[in-house]
C-alpha cells in the first residue's frame, strides 16, 4: 500500500510535469519550424540571429504585457476587451502629459498608470459588485476608453519630441525605444520579461493567487470558504488595466507618439496568446508561463512569416490554423 502510494504519486507527478509544460510544446514546435523555414544569408539562419530574436521579443512585448494582465482576468473566469483601447488611452496620456502639460517623467508615468489602474478597478466594480458580465462591461469600457483617448488627444496622434525645453519630453522617455546591454536587448523586451517573472512568482506563491484560482474554479465555493471574492475580482481587473496602461506607455515611448487609435484589436491578440498558452476561458485553470509561451509562439509565427515574405492573405490563413491547432494541443491536458 505504501509503496503503491509512492509509486502512484511519482507516476502522477511525472504526468503532471508533462502537462505542466505542455504549454511550452507548441512554442517549441513553432520555434523548430521557424528554424527549418528560416531564410539564410551567408550561411547564417536569419531567424536565429540574436538581433532577430530580440526583435521578436520586442514585437510581442506590448501584447505580452497585456496578456499577462489578461491571464489574471481570465483565471477568475472574466475577460477584458478594453485593454487595446486602454493602451491607446495610456499612450495618448503619456504623450499629452509629457509634451503638452510638461509633466516630469515620473509624474507622467505615475498618472498614466493610475488612470489604467483606476479604469480597471471601475470595470471590476461594475462586474463584481453590480454583477454585470465582464464581456459587456469591458466592451463598453473599450468604447469609453477610445472616446476618452480621442477627446484627450484632440483626435490626432500627439508626437513626442525630446529635449529640455517646454513642449519637449525628457530624453529618458525615449529609452523605451532603445536597447540596453551593448545595444542587444530592447528595453520593452526587458520590461516584458520583468513583468512576466513577477507575475509568475506572484501567481505561484501568494495567497491572493490561490484566491484567484479558487474564484475561477467555483466562485460560490470560494465565497463560502471565506475568499473575499468581490475584492479579489476588483483587484484583478485593476491589475489588468494597470498592465495595459504600462503597455501603452511603452507603446508611446517606442513610437515617439501617442495616438488614440493605438492598440486597435490588441485585445483579441492578447486573448489569443492567453488561450494558446493553455489557460481556460472558463477560468480556474492556466498560468502566466503558458501565456508568455503563447505570446512568443504567435510572435515567432509572425516573424517567420514576415521573414519569408509570405503573402498577407496566406499569413491570415496560416495564423488561423496554427491558433486552432495550438489550442487543440492544449486541450490534451487532463480535464
Amino acid at each position, binding site marked *: 500500500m505504501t509503496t503503491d502510494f509512492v509509486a502512484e504519486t511519482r507516476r502522477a507527478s511525472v504526468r503532471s510535469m508533462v502537462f505542466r509544460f505542455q504549454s511550452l510544446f507548441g512554442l517549441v514546435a513553432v520555434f523548430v519550424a521557424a528554424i527549418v523555414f528560416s*531564410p539564410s*544569408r551567408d550561411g547564417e539562419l*536569419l531567424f536565429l*540571429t540574436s*538581433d*532577430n530574436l530580440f*526583435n521578436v521579443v*520586442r*514585437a510581442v512585448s506590448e501584447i505580452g504585457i497585456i496578456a499577462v494582465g489578461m491571464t489574471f482576468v481570465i483565471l477568475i473566469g472574466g475577460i477584458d476587451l478594453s485593454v487595446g483601447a486602454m493602451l491607446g488611452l495610456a499612450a495618448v496620456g503619456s504623450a499629452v502629459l509629457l509634451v503638452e502639460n510638461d509633466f516630469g517623467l515620473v509624474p507622467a508615468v505615475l498618472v498614466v498608470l493610475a488612470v489604467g489602474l483606476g479604469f480597471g478597478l471601475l470595470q471590476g466594480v461594475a462586474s463584481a459588485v453590480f454583477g454585470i458580465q465582464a464581456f459587456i462591461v469591458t466592451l463598453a469600457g473599450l468604447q469609453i476608453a477610445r472616446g476618452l483617448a*480621442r477627446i484627450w488627444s484632440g*483626435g*490626432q*496622434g*500627439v*508626437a513626442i*519630441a525630446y529635449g529640455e525645453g517646454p513642449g519637449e519630453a525628457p530624453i529618458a522617455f525615449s529609452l523605451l*525605444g*532603445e*536597447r540596453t546591454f551593448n*545595444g542587444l536587448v*530592447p528595453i520593452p523586451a526587458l520590461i516584458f520579461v520583468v513583468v512576466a517573472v513577477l507575475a509568475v512568482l506572484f501567481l505561484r506563491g501568494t495567497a491572493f493567487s490561490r484566491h484567484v484560482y479558487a474564484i475561477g474554479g467555483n466562485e460560490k465555493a470560494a465565497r463560502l470558504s471565506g475568499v473575499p471574492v468581490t475584492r479579489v475580482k476588483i483587484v484583478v481587473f485593476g491589475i489588468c488595466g494597470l498592465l495595459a496602461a504600462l503597455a501603452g506607455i511603452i*507603446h508611446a515611448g*517606442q*513610437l*515617439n*507618439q501617442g*495616438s488614440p*487609435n*493605438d492598440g*486597435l484589436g490588441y485585445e483579441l491578440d492578447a486573448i489569443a496568446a492567453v488561450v494558446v498558452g493553455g489557460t481556460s476561458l472558463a477560468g480556474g485553470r492556466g498560468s502566466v508561463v503558458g501565456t508568455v509561451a503563447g505570446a512568443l509562439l504567435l510572435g515567432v509565427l*509572425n*516573424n517567420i512569416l*514576415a*521573414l*519569408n*515574405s509570405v503573402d*498577407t*492573405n496566406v499569413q491570415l490563413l496560416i495564423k488561423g490554423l496554427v491558433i486552432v491547432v495550438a489550442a487543440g494541443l492544449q486541450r490534451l491536458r487532463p480535464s
Partner: protein
Amino acid sequence: GTTSENRSAGPATGAACKGAGGKYVIGMSQANVAEPYRQRMDDDIRAAAKAVPQFEVRFTDAQQDNSRQVADVENFLTQQVDLLIISPNEAKPLTGVVKKAFDKGVPVIVLDRKVEGDAYTTWIGADNVEIGRQAGKYVAEQLLPNGGKVAEIRGLAGSTPARERGDGFRESIRGRRIEIVVSQDGDWLREKGQEKADAILKSTPDIQVIYAHNDPMAEGAYLAARAAGRQDALKFIGIDGLPIPSGGLKAVEAGRLSATLIYPTAGREAIESARRILLDCQQVPKTQTLQTQLITKDNAAQVYAKENPGG
C-alpha cells in the same frame, strides 16, 4: 493650388442657395477618423467653417464601414441638411445614397475618394497615381540616381490608394535600374510599419530606400532602422505630409524622413466650394484636382508654418 474644370454643377445648386442671409447646416460624412489624414480633413473643415458664420457643420464617423456611412448620410437627409460633404469609404457602396441626396436637391461635395456616375455637385481631391509617380521620380532622381534597391511598405491590402500609390511609383521608376526587392503590407499603421521593416531589414539588408505609402509607416520603418543602428544608411520617404505635430512635415523637418508628398485634405477647398454654392449661388467645377507638393528638408518648416497660421 487648384486646377478647375468645366461642366455644370447640376440642378441642385440653385434650389439650395438662400444667399448670404441664410443659415446653413452642412453634414460632413467622414469614412473614418482613425486615419490622421481624415481627422485632419475634419479639422480643416471645422477651421475653415469657423470663418463663415452662416455655416454649422455636423460631423459623422463611419468607422471604415460602408453600411454605417450609408446610415450616416440617411440621417443627414432626415435632418434635412442644406449641403452634404462626404469623404466616401469606398466608391461603389456610397454611390446610391449620394445620388439619393443629390436627387433630393441637396448639393453634394465629394472629397478624396470618388463615387460613381455624376450625381454629385463637385469632387475635390488629389491624384494618388500622380503622387506615387512623383515619389518614384524623387527616388529615381534624387536618392538613387545610379539605381538601387527599394523596399515598399504598402497601405491596407485592397484599398484603392494603396494600389494607386504603388502603381504610380512603379510607373516612374521603370527603366531606371531601380528594383523593388520586397513589398509588405503595413495596413497604414505606424507599428505595422515598424514590425514589417524589422523583418525587411533582416531578410533583405541591402536595400537603400524604404518607400512607405504613408508617413506613419515610414516613421515606423525609421524606428526599426534606428533600433538596428541603420537609420543613417537608409532613406525613408512617405506620403501625406500632414501639417500636424505627429505628421510627415515635422518628420522631414527633423530629418527622419528624406521626403514626403503632400496629400491635400481638401477641407478648406470644400468649405470654399460650399460658400460659393450656398452663399454666392455660383456654380462650381465638377472636378477640382488638388496638386501635391514634394516636401524635403528645404521647405518643410515653411509649409508647416503656412498650413498652421498662428501656431
